[in-house]
């Protein structure tokens, strides 16, 4: 993996500076059913194509942000603050 990610704070940097935080996965309300919680824990969309996901600029500004990445090409089309 060698693609570039434009950090909203630091600009374009190599992927090895970042930690992947997984696809965005909304957390159920505390009162949600156990099925919803199970789904939150274990089920992922595993999209082929554009996916919104969390990234953390570990060796940079140490900020979490959201990135839209094409999972088939690793092209990051958009990054923004949550």
């Amino acid at each position, binding site marked *: *993996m*060698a*693609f*570039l990610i434009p950090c909203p704070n630091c600009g374009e940097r*190599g992927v090895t500076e970042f*930690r992947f*935080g997984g696809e965005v996965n909304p*957390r*159920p309300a*505390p009162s*949600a059913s*156990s099925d919803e*919680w199970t789904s*939150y*824990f274990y089920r992922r969309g595993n999209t082929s194509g554009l996916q919104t996901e*969390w990234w*953390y600029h*570990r060796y940079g500004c*140490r*900020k*979490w*942000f959201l990135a839209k990445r094409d999972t088939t090409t*690793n092209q990051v089309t958009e990054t923004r*603050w*949550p």
Partner: protein
Amino acid sequence: MALTQNGNRLPPRPGEAIDRSHAVSFTYNGRGIRAFAGDTVASALYASGVTILSRSFKYHRPRGLLCAAGRCPNCLVTVDGVPNVRACTTPVREGMAVRSQNAWPSVDTDALNVIDKFDFAMPVGFYYKTFHQPKLMWHIAQPIIRRLGGLGAVDITADPESHYHHDNRHADVAVAGGGPAGLSAAIAAASAGAKVVLVDDQPSLGGHLRFDPSRHADVPGLKAGKGPELAAQLTEAVRASSRIQVIAGTVFGVYQDNLVAVLTRDSVIKLRAKRLIVATGSNEVPHVFENNDLPGVMLSTAAVRLAYLYGVKPGRKAVVACGDDYGYRAALALQGAGVKIAAVVDARGGFPASMSEAQALRDSGVRVLNGYVVIRAEGPKHLSAVSLCHLREGVPLTEELRLDCDLLATSGAFEPAAGLLHQSGGRFAFDEALGEMLPSDLPRGVLVTGEVTGIRDLRANILQGRVAGLDAASSFHVLSYEVRQDLARLRHDLAEALAAYRAHTTRSSPIADMPGKKRFVCFCEDVTVKDVAQAVDEGFADIQSLKRYSTVTMGPCQGKMCHRSFVHLCAAKTGQSVQKTGSTTLRPPLAPVPLGALAGHLHTPIKRTPVDKRSRDMGARMTDLGPWRRAHVFSNPEEEALAIRQRVGIIDVTSLGKLDVRGKDCGALLDKVYTNKMSDLQAGRIRYGLMCADSGTILDDGTVSRLALDHFFVTTTTGNVEAIEEWVRWWTAGTNMCAHVNNVTAAYAAINLAGPKARDTLRKLTDMDISADSFKYMRFGQGHVAGVPAILLRIGFVGETGWEIHFPAEYGEHVWDALLNAGEEFGIIPCGLEAQRILRLEKKHIIVNQDTDSVTTPLEADMEWAVKFDKEDFVGRGGIRAVKERGIRNKVVGFVMRDGLVPEDGDPVVMGGSPIGRVTSSRFSPALRKGVGIAYVPADYAEEGRELLISINGRTEPATVTLKPFYDPEGERLRA
């Protein structure tokens, strides 16, 4: 052998790479070899009469210099114990020890060459076919074949420490290749303002110009001159530019978004470029005929290189075989270097009368044979003659012509060195007119220039280079009006040059279907035309599966010598067009890369505390704890533990993770990430915190101190702080709370001062009121200790009156010394990690990740008291609640042995001979004089006084469950 020890050096010539005033000597198989500075191992050996450099992979056939450019597998040797080094690009160094490999008893007379006679036993794909009946046969044959075949041997006793380092570079424009096109591109890009990094793998810049003796008058922007003079002009312009950086190395990979991987002599460079210009030129490739691997048969560029770069006579009497104009130039060059040309053999039917070099050659009396091809080289160990046959309309006739010679220079077969374009995702199309696969579709950010485009014309290549350089720079710099005018003119000139080149270029097809045995397509793995044909007959007609079955293009040259012949041969055998046949996929690495270079340094940073040196000076034995180095034991862990129980001791706990959390919402944030409530903590107080994942499993624990309404000081377990910092920051980002988390672990030193005499010791160093009534357990204070500003946490991991003193790390040794001095009268001693582990175990305090694992929830850890379900929401609530509803299966319990027996961490808890749980920590308790520990057992065992059986060294020993701390169960000493 035709060549002798001393007669092979030519007279000095301007532009040569060697320095004849500087002698270098080294050994080859123990024999002394004299060379000059600037020689390569191969040129020095060839000058000394060594023409057999290696033995082939499978048949152990003698192999000599073929490409002399670091492409082919023929000159792999072992240098100073490092196997598979290319002799032809490795500069000589004084005293280096070079050895040949894969031969017995010697590379000159290799007894294993007998395998050559048994080739019928090793047809293509033999490992699927032969030696399989009976079944046992393969098990006997395979290790022998493994031993006989192959390359050099790795010295496993050598020092494993890699001497390679890794380096990151950035450039606007990266140029791969330092030939005329690459240099021109670099100069043009830099002139337009771009920061350029140029990578070239040859000993000096200039590419083929360095050994091109012909005079070039019509090169735009350069003064007329011979090749080396033009190379010098270009090199000078590159050196003069402050924007161009030159790296001597090999580009072995291109990855996404133009990450260019470069291997140098001692490093791997990760070069990130906005634009990549591929100017890798072309590789000359061997002709295919019988015995085409015989020493003495080499590529024409190799022969010319030897003569012009290294002043080595490649042979006495040469035949030059060619299929295009380049052969005449090579022949003229060799003649100019003093090699007698026996004949030029041109596969094309007509003499190229319009070519001045060809005319000059013929006028000098050289025999030119048009419409002939070489069908056989004759040996046995070095070339002594070649047999030719006449072609009529591409079909070989039976009549033969035999010429005596000791050098056959083959020319006219080139292939674009397009590996980097393959890797970066470029597409290729077969150009019928030029007879080559040429780049047709380039990926974003990649440009291509020079001979890699199939155009082998100096004027055109230099124009291409300039255009590419300006194009690359223009994609992120605004070009000035003058430069744009210049670019337009260059484009126009280039279009004309390309049209002219195409108009007069004809190339012959590389393979006429000729007779003969042992016609090698692949030199790396000894694959012949017959092998490939047989594989096609067996059904492997598709180029990709044919590659995998026959292993052609899969050896050390990675297709650089064989790919073109292979594709054409496959096309001919299957009756498909070359375009339809396609090509194999070239993947990184483009050239062999030592594993040590990829690994880089054994780089494991160690974090040392501010009292690391002091501890070692005091005799501490050190140990690793996560990334930290900690004092393990100073004197004796049990004595150290007793000192804290009875008197006073200090422990360096700097490695504890420390987070500074501030902001309006910091209370809410900590409520979210900890299972217990933090927002109602009063300023000045401390609370134990347990952190879980949403699934309910324990992540971390530590203390939370409220410094102010909007300011907390949080500690985490050693080595976990980076992960916890990221975790807390993630929840901050995800919930949009106004809170700021700062990792201050290394900024603060921390010393735990504990024991009945801790207060007396501390009182001497601080003006704070530390009496039991005013500085209570689970409170903290801010003040000075030994004059240093500090935060003092009154907590009790070890179970005695004590303070965890956090202060700026710079004062580590000062405070450490001050505490030891102040406590001297009370018998203070420094204590290590082992004593701390004993003391905490006596208090039955768990260590996250030691006594818990990745599925342990607070319920299993017997810490439900730290979980506040009445909070609105917190991370882990859903998971812990689900476990609570389901009921727990296992639980963490304490146990006491009957006597001083101590199980090992990890020993099984058994029932009826089967394991039902495990010991997670255990130590001998100096306070109880018994073995104590923590075990993970089925939940129904978690009853005070229940008996457990623990298997220690195969013997089952009884232990008693206890749910309270073993020592001071009510915590009176802690609060004292």
